[in-house]
């Protein structure tokens, strides 16, 4: 009977290690395996099950898209026929290629993760806090927290990010609009509706360069069109009356050219000197020694190398793993929330946990770590469940602590979360978690109670 109990005890726990492969149908009823994007703490929006990422406020991205599409549409509809007739068929071809390139670059810039840094795990944050307290460097001035490091023989200050709970790597900045730390943060562009950072800077640059070419091309073609028309024995006004769309295009292109070309020139300068807009605006390196580029510790001191490194360098991976499944420790709140009313069977569960402890102690003798990290689970952190089931003897005291912990977690673990939940609540979840995990073993307890309840027909309840 006891043996039966032990086996039943182990079974659900082993199952719950990998929630994505939850074979237990009752578990499925309670919580489907969720992807990480659904609980992402930043202010981002996700589409296509996490494949596409956008800032919360898409800004004027629809306007940008609209302007480009409308201008190109008018160009192909009204100017191209005339120009094909009078000049060459390559005009719409070139226009088409440029237009497609611009749109793809724009969409890539908008929908790509700019280099968001995932927030520090609670353990990491605790470790950093410990280091800050013990180092004594900030005792005379508690906030703000900074750390000085040497990069290429130059002193650089790293700032502590209070939202993400870590020291920001160099060139990383926290975007308040997206509420994320972004690596090599350039700026938050409302026109593309996303931050521009390490991973999408090359897309952004190719977008503005190709857009400059496109606007100049359209501008030139429209001028040519109107000129040719007025040369055919008509005056300018008549020519314009015949093709009013051209005027619209002229106006749009005229204003765009100034701004886009200016922006392209500025970013070309930034690329050549391996700077970000953020650094340029803040003047991070300009006040240093006056020799060119020696102030910037990231520059390769060669324009070509700088350009190649920024634009043609290796494409870094996305660090936030949007489509990965939630590991067990993150999924705990959702599960435990369901188990609160079932604490009645707590006593029986306590007995079973006791026997579980015996089982574990036996395991110690055959201490064997093979299969510790089963292959194919890179996305799960099985160690996340740091609940020491060895704390079973203290179960009498802890449930209440665990219970209150769980109560606090309830508002956060809504089963159908809008993924744009506020970072504050997420932070509270993170800060509660360590206490929740360490203070009580009630997760295993409550899991077993849950299984107990649902398993009435398994002949399990007949325990002493």
């Amino acid at each position, binding site marked *: 009977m006891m043996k039966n109990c032990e*086996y039943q005890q*182990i079974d659900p*726990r*082993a199952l719950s*290690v990998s929630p994505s492969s939850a074979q237990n149908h009752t578990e499925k009823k309670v919580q489907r395996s969720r992807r990480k994007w659904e609980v992402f703490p930043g202010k981002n929006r996700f589409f296509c099950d996490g494949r596409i990422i956008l800032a919360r406020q898409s800004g004027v991205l629809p306007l940008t898209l609209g302007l480009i599409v409308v201008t190109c549409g008018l160009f192909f509809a009204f100017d191209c026929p005339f120009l094909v007739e009078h000049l060459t068929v390559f005009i719409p071809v070139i226009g088409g290629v440029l237009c497609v390139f611009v749109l*793809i*670059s724009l969409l*890539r810039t908008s929908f790509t993760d700019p280099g968001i840094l*995932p927030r*520090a*795990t609670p*353990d*990491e944050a605790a*470790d*950093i806090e410990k280091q800050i307290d013990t180092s004594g460097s900030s005792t005379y001035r508690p906030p703000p927290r900074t750390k000085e*490091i*040497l*990069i*290429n023989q130059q002193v650089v200050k*790293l700032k502590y990010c209070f939202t993400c709970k*870590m020291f920001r*790597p*160099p*060139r990383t900045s926290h975007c308040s609009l997206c509420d994320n730390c972004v*690596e090599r943060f350039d700026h938050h562009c409302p026109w593309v509706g996303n931050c521009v950072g390490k991973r999408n800077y*090359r*897309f952004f640059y*190719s977008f503005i360069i190709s857009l400059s070419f496109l606007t100049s091309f359209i501008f030139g073609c429209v001028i040519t069109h109107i000129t040719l028309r007025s040369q055919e024995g008509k005056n300018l006004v008549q020519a314009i009356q015949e093709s009013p769309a051209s005027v619209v295009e002229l106006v749009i292109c005229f204003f765009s050219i100034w701004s886009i070309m200016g922006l392209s020139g500025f970013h070309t300068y930034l690329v050549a000197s391996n700077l970000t807009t953020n650094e340029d605006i803040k003047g991070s390196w300009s006040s240093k020694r006056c020799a060119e580029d020696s102030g910037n510790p*990231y520059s390769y001191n060669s324009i070509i190398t700088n350009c*190649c*490194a920024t*634009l*043609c*360098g*290796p*494409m870094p*991976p996305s*660090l936030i*793993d949007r489509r990965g499944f939630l590991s067990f420790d993150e999924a705990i709140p959702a599960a435990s929330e369901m188990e609160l009313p079932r604490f009645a069977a707590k006593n029986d569960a306590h007995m079973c946990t006791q026997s*579980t402890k015996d*089982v*574990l*102690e036996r*395991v*110690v003798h055959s*201490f*064997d770590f*093979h*299969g*510790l*990290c089963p*292959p194919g689970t*890179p996305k799960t*952190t*099985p*160690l996340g*469940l740091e*609940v*020491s089931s*060895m704390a079973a003897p203290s179960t009498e005291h802890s449930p209440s602590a665990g219970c209150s912990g769980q109560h606090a977690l309830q508002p956060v673990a809504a089963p159908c979360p809008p993924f744009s939940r506020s970072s504050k609540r997420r932070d509270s979840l993170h800060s509660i978690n360590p206490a929740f995990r360490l203070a009580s073993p009630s997760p295993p307890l409550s899991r077993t109670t849950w299984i107990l309840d649902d398993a009435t027909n398994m002949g399990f309840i007949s325990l002493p």
Partner: protein
Amino acid sequence: MAETHSLQDMRQQAAVAAKVFIQRDYTKGTVCQFQTKFPSELETRIDKQQFEETVQTLNNLYAEAEKLGSQSYVEGCLACLTAYTIFLCMETHYEKVLKKIAKYIQEQNDKIYAPRGLLLTDPIERGLRVIEVTIFEDRSLTR
């Protein structure tokens, strides 16, 4: 057999004594490198040289991933010409090296760290910020 496997899972969840975080080393810039300084908490568990060798190998692998060489330039130019749509179908050099790194870490865990009651977590799971080393309680001592 299923029972044994489950017990082992339990074992791995059972007793985490501490976690050590190996931070990034930024002296060479923003390239991904980790500090090779040997943390004092691991002194009783593993050989200093062994550990430093692991971290150094990881550093070398990351350096290979981020290397600015002809391969990365070709990849970059090709991507630019295809309006970056090529990234949708092709695995980048960086991703290939990341797979190598994951395999290496698993190997190291199986052969060297797990028998000593330690576990390395792949830095990519921590946003390439830290190498997390989990130290398990030495159950044989407590018994």
